[in-house]
């Protein structure tokens, strides 16, 4: 169990690191785009599309990271198979789906974003499977708890 908790700690801090990177990017995105433009010149439309998509996605990413952090903290408190955790994973699924949908119009302006649409779409599908498994596990746990 200690090994599981250690890996949960690693994931928890990895998530917080990603949150910090996203937070820094909120303020430095124009500079980063300028720097990127030196290697692969961007048109004004492409630059605007990336900026708009990033700021819209940042909301969904923020919600997903908050839920992920909360989920991992509840796992550390040994509260794994609960309805609350299912709700959190479901929220993460919707956030992944949201990022995928947000990137669709932006992908028409900046084609590499198609990759993002596909990856996030696949991720939301994968998280849906996790939600189903988790919901079934909660049912089994409740049934087990109520077996005398």
């Amino acid at each position, binding site marked *: 169990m200690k090994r599981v908790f250690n890996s949960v700690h690693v994931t928890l801090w990895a998530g917080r690191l990603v949150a910090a990177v996203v937070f820094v990017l909120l303020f430095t995105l124009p500079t980063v785009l300028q720097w990127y433009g030196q290697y692969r010149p961007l048109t004004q439309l492409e630059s605007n599309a990336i900026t708009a998509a990033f700021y819209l996605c940042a909301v969904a990413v923020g919600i997903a990271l908050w839920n992920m952090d909360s989920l991992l903290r509840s796992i550390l408190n040994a509260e794994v198979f609960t309805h609350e955790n299912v709700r959190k994973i479901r929220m993460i699924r919707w956030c992944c789906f949201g990022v995928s949908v947000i990137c669709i119009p932006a992908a028409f302006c900046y084609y590499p974003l198609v990759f993002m649409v596909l990856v996030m779409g696949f991720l939301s599908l994968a998280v849906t499977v996790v939600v189903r498994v988790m919901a079934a596990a909660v049912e089994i746990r409740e049934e087990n708890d*109520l*077996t*005398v």
Partner: protein
Amino acid sequence: MAIIVNLDVQLARRKMTSLELAQRIGLTQANLSILKTGKAKAIRMSTLNEICRVLGCQPGDLLEFVEDDHGTE
């Protein structure tokens, strides 16, 4: 729930308390309470066996099927 647990009736007939039964069958009072209040989703054969042995009754004396609007739930 279509299955009614008549454990309290059997206990009253034998003038036995839940605590005494729990101690004699090796079950926690919390689990016995789950059974008594009808919240239990399943009962182990070993638990049923112990209850019947201690109370000197048949499983049918403890469990009763009652038709309700929702079927089995």
